[in-house]
């Protein structure tokens, strides 16, 4: 079974620029999550999708972050404009349902200069 795929693996941008990350979950997994992990901290949930609907986006900074999962499979997370404090690893995870084990992708390391 293929795991969660993410791209790019690394991204370096300057502040105020825009950036987008892509995630392809495990086949058949209805629930998809985006997490932000700042160095030295645990992952923090940004947004949770169930199929193509948003379940929880309470910790997503909506003035600059957006995410979509239009067809209920792949998802993109965008930051526009980026700030220095957005430097982190962005992890995508998926699960069969909200109460099931979450499996993580390799992450994207974002550096904002």
């Amino acid at each position: 079974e293929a795991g969660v795929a993410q791209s790019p693996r690394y991204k370096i941008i300057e502040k105020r620029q825009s950036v987008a990350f892509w995630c392809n979950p495990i086949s058949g997994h209805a629930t998809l999550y985006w997490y932000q992990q700042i160095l030295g901290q645990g992952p923090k949930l940004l947004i949770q999708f169930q199929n193509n609907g948003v379940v929880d986006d309470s910790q997503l900074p909506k003035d600059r972050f957006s995410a979509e999962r239009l067809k209920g499979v792949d998802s993109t997370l965008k930051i526009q404009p980026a700030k220095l404090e957005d430097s982190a690893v962005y992890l995508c995870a998926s699960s069969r349902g909200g109460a099931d084990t979450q499996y993580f992708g390799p992450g994207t390391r974002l550096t904002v200069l």
Partner: protein
Amino acid sequence: EDKVVQSPLSLVVHEGDTVTLNCSYEVTNFRSLLWYKQEKKAPTFLFMLTSSGIEKKSGRLSSILDKKELFSILNITATQTGDSAIYLCAARFGNEKLTFGTGTRLTIIP
């Protein structure tokens, strides 16, 4: 606010030693507790615990949950250099969201 606290923050031991990692949580409608191992970037799943007092075991790793005292431990026996990683604990609360601790960085010296 739901909270998960892990200790110690970091631990350095020699190969062959046994280690115990701790995770405590403050609960609002607690459902389950999960342990992940994070090497480089992607956390990989180790255990999910839902019942108190029942040990889960996988090779040299084992974990147990105490729902009365609100904590879990992860034990690793006969440690190897490949066990060096950050170990993350996460608690699932009533809304099914996972709240992660900051992790324990384990370093195994050959």
